């Protein structure tokens, strides 16, 4: 009896929300997707509905937000430039809070709203859950940044970024071949599948090719502020190279604290490190000399496409510098566009499954030139074939490393 009032109130609230939701779905897909700003609205024969899933709240929100922003940017650009084969792109985003269960809920909502292509999910673990669903629906799924092997464990799932093992092995080989370091220390995030996955393969590859790992120090998402102990241990180990398979936020803190502790070693990272210059802000000088293997670099980009993308992104989102996630997502939209163009799909009312078959057929043999490099796909595995450039940070910008 006591709680009935509140419960009834909540019920009414929830029901009214659902009711509102229904009307908004029937009436205003355009409002939801923000695709109608293009002046040539109405010139399109129909809209291909792209869905996106990723964290825009919670601890991983910065990654999901970057992807969401970049997809929006690309969709708006494509619609403004006349669309694809006479069709426009519509876009709807759902938040998954970096949680597999919520990602599946988000996926179901998008399917209810007639999604035809999925760009997502952003983070690896939720991606694995969604892949299982997408496999049953046979919807084309292209994850910009889900880097775990299992993230694309379905014939209809592809990715834009590198896989974790690929990066771990690649980093070890690059260090060995170019003789960057002999005694390697590693600081990695044990609670993050990305970081953990790279480290595991890096370590195995290092043993195979004879790289010596003198220190391996972990941290977790819950203790990602204080790195003094890890840095001190790296210092004591006598390492000459510090390998950082982590994201740029933690890396910025490590660089700051390493500077305070007078740690003087070369540092080497993977694509997650991109963004570290912006993150350091006025202390960007600390990143001087940091090396990373990355297919995209916003600062100091020389490639025309990269510059155009960086400028467009900054103009659209309050001068924010696009990171790796944004670049991958931006490419993802253009990959879908290229594949649809090649497949010659002109009817936007095509079912997601038919569209998926056509896109995969088109992807076979397609060479795509995007901001994250030139790539082709292995149709069997869904992995992209592209090269990562070794960059070094010099005077606050990325410069290609001379071999």
């Amino acid at each position, binding site marked *: 009896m006591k709680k009935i009032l509140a419960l009834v109130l909540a019920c009414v609230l929830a029901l009214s929300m659902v009711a509102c939701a229904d009307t908004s779905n029937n009436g205003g897909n355009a409002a939801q997707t923000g695709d109608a700003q293009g002046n040539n609205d109405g010139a399109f024969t129909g809209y291909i509905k792209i869905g996106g899933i990723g964290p825009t709240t919670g*601890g991983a929100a910065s990654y999901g937000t970057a992807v969401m922003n970049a997809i929006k940017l690309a969709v708006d650009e494509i619609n403004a430039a006349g669309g694809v084969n006479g069709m426009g792109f519509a876009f709807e985003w759902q938040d998954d809070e970096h949680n597999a269960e919520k990602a599946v809920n988000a996926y179901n909502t998008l399917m209810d709203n007639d999604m035809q292509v999925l760009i997502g999910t952003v983070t690896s673990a939720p991606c694995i859950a969604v892949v299982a669903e997408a496999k049953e629906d046979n919807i084309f799924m292209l994850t910009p940044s889900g880097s775990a092997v299992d993230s694309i464990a379905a014939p209809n799932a592809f990715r834009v970024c590198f896989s974790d093992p690929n990066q771990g092995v690649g980093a070890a080989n690059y260090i060995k071949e170019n003789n960057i370091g002999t005694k390697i220390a590693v600081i990695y995030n044990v609670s993050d599948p990305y970081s953990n996955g790279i480290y595991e393969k890096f370590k195995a590859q290092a043993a195979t090719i004879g790289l010596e790992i003198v220190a391996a*120090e972990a941290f977790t998402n819950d203790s990602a502020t204080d790195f*003094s102990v890890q840095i001190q241990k790296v210092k004591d180990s006598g390492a000459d190279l510090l390998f950082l398979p982590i994201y740029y*936020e933690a890396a910025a*803190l490590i660089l700051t604290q390493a500077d305070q502790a007078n740690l003087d070693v070369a540092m080497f990272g993977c694509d997650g490190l991109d963004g570290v210059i912006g*993150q*350091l802000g006025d202390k960007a000088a600390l990143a001087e000399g940091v090396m990373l293997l990355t297919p995209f670099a916003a600062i100091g980009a020389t490639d025309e496409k990269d510059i155009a993308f960086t400028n467009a992104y900054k103009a659209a989102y309050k001068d924010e510098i696009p990171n790796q996630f944004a670049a991958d997502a931006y490419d993802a939209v253009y990959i879908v566009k290229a594949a649809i163009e090649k497949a010659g799909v002109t009817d936007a009312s095509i079912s997601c499954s038919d569209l998926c078959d056509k896109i995969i057929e088109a992807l076979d043999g397609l060479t795509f030139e995007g901001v994250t490099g030139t790539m082709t796909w292995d149709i069997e595995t869904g992995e992209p074939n592209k090269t990562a450039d070794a960059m070094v940070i010099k005077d606050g910008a990325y410069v290609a490393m001379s071999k």
Partner: protein
Amino acid sequence: MSSFFSYLIAGISLGGIYALIALGYTMVYGIAKMLNFAHGDVIMIGGYVAFTAISTMQQPVWIAVPCAIIACILLGVVIEKVAYKPLRSATPLAVLITAIGVSYLLQNVALLIFGSQARNFTSVVPDDFSVSLGSINISGETVVTILASVAIMVALTLFVNHTKSGKAMQAVSEDRGAAQLMGINVNRTISLTFAIGSALAGVASVLLCSTYPQISPYTGAMPGIKAFTAAVFGGIGSIPGAMIGGVVLGVIENLSKAYISSELSDAIVFAVLIIVLLVKPTGLLGKKINEKV
């Protein structure tokens, strides 16, 4: 040996931050008997205010820091008035859940205003505050954090024991009903406690963000939990207990990272906590309360 000292100092530095936050927790718990789970998020808001003042509005530190503290006090008092005061007679759990709601609210408001990207925070402590002991370098932030937490601990102890308002707080903490009968304004005393607790959050926000120079909408969440742990560790409600609990927790965390396992250090810290509570069920300095029938 020198690395041991550097681990120790890093631990004390981390612990100083925990202690500072734990002092706020313990004040509110001791007097209002509620776990203010939104404390960490008040700290986060304070950090954003300082960030806005320093980086966006280009104000000097001596303006930014008071701004952050005042903002925290205002926020704390408003939260107390709107969300906690109506629940004065409700069960402690109801207040706890409301505090969690406030915590979600603050995080999501910050997310909407400042975005999800972690921002780079410019330290408010000048570089020349740092101290060198042989090969060990103690950063200025650590020095200021330790000094600030000791000073605050002493000031709070004096305040609680030697001023009229402080004694009123003790009385309210002891027996709310009896205090009211003695003519103490219980509501005002609890509001004052919140104001003080939030002021401490303001100080903590500036020092937390200076030591680990980044701020995001979730900056306050984890330090909040750790500091809550520290407050319990030291005996929740006890002012010196919060200080000791914070420092000990920081030292344990860093030593376990250094000597046992950096992968499992979170687990080790909590395991030590469980053991301490089993040996001393009311924390290091907690009072054993005899229950009245």
